[in-house]
């Protein structure tokens, strides 16, 4: 329907997450109308990010260091970080979320996904082998499982717990409970149930 170049662009945009055919078309025409410099700046930032950013070889967070396969992320190279505690998360964006709390001074391990047979993601597709490797070499004492509180995240945490149960490492899981600033009566049954299960004693 469109010139081949335009159709190619629409197809590429349509492959991005959350962008359907209609949005792809709209963005493509927006790009066509854009001054050349603006469009090229977008193209350049895509190339730059692909050239400069890759996965940290240790924790699989995003790391800046070109095509160097030995690159490590800022957190793994930071000596002030406590290397004995490691937070296990699904995606790099979860690292950012936890970093924002400024509560955690340990390091991370990014699984790059969660177990989901429907999507063909089994444990072998996640960075689990690499995690086991780190446990042998890095002197890690505690793992905090911070997978998402949904079915797939839970399954991943349960899988890791089963896998790690005979290893000399302390494994804990992020508490799940009520959002701060919310109302008890608006909490859903499952969240409230879990919060009850994970209650803590305050006296006696």
């Amino acid at each position, binding site marked *: 329907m469109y010139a081949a170049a335009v159709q190619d662009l629409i197809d590429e945009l349509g492959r991005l997450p959350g962008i*359907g055919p*209609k949005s792809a078309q709209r963005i493509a025409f927006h790009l066509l109308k854009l001054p050349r410099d603006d469009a090229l700046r977008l193209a350049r930032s895509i190339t730059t990010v692909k050239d400069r950013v890759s996965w940290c070889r240790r924790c699989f967070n995003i790391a800046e260091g070109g095509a160097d396969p030995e690159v490590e992320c800022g957190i793994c190279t930071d000596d002030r970080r406590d290397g004995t505690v490691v937070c296990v998360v699904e995606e790099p964006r979860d690292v950012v979320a936890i970093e924002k709390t400024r509560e955690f001074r340990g390091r991370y391990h990014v699984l790059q996904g969660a*177990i*989901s*047979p*429907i999507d*063909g993601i*089994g*444990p*072998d597709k996640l960075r689990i082998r690499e995690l086991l490797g780190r446990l042998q070499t890095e002197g890690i004492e505690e793992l905090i499982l911070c997978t998402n509180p949904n*079915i*797939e995240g*839970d*399954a991943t945490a*349960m*899988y890791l717990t*089963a*896998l790690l149960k005979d290893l000399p490492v302390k494994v804990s899981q992020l508490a799940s409970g009520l959002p701060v600033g919310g109302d008890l009566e608006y909490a*859903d*049954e*499952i969240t409230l149930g879990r919060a009850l299960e994970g209650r803590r004693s305050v006296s006696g």
Partner: protein
Amino acid sequence: MYLEQLFLSDFRSYGEAEFSPAPHGITVVTGANGAGKTNLIEAVAYLSTLKSLRASPSAALIRAGAPSGSAVLRSRVRHDARLVTVDAELHATGRDRVQVNGQVLRRTRDLLGALQVTVFSPDDLSLVKGPPAGRRSYLDDLLVALQPRRYDLLSELERVLKQRNALLKSALAGRAGGGVGWRPGRPLPDDVKITLDVWDAKLVTVGESLVAARRELVDELQPLVEGAYGSLASGSAAPSRLSTTLAYEVSWSGSLAAALDAARPDDLRRGVTTVGPQRDDVALAIGALPARTHASQGEQRTLALALRLAGHRLLAAALDTPPVLLLDDVFSELDAARADSLMANLPALSETQAIVTTAGELPSGASPAAWFRVEDGKLLV
């Protein structure tokens, strides 16, 4: 609660129509077969659950040849002094859009309760005669109507089963565990074994709470069904054929965890989960004999009505306000005596809105509060 006004545009056979049933008592909708009476019932029911009565996808609900390629339903529902609007836009392609009180609905669960309905339809016979799935969804629909939060429990079960079945299939095909496919007698690769353990544990947690809720519901329904059946059938049945029982039957024995373990080789071979609440059933009996095989057609129909009436009464008591009754062409299936006794047994019509469709006569006891006629996809007063 009652439906104050419904506006339909390009929904099923309707081009544009406006429907304002009487707030209480019976609103009759007449019309020839195929005129679109059931479509009207379906529109009301859709706004209650966002599901088609006939399990059709959204695209099938849009009038063929609708220029916009979409259907619109707008409704006003009165809860005492409170007014709730529920609007739905159905699109042939792309996502449907539902608004409650003008706010876009993000989760189906948040709609539940805005409009509650009890639907009686000729298809209800399959509650008694049909496969277990119909009886399970009878229970599950009631569970959700009684407590909308249970919607999450049901979707979690569905999700866990999908994941577990996908894993079983990929183990068989050798996609999981990176090796050859599993075959009977062969040990499972460790990866698959632990992952399957994980899904089993999830299925046990979700399954056990669903089964507990269903059992409790069956216990609550038992006296209501028996009472409804007794009064619907009295006069036309021998006393020994007036007692009815409901019994929840799980599809395994012992603990669910142990049953899943025992069924694992079988599950792996077939690539589906063969035990769990998704295989359970409710045994229905009339006079101590299974209703599916030992009851007459008339008795089965009466039992189906009794199940719906019981569900309606349970909801009415729990919600403080009776759901809207939707009776789709029900009287044509009943003999005169049963039709009259259904009419007599409809709960307090002075407080309940009942929308009744019929191609023929109404039972003698009916005194409608409003009449509508459907003709060529148009609704006439």
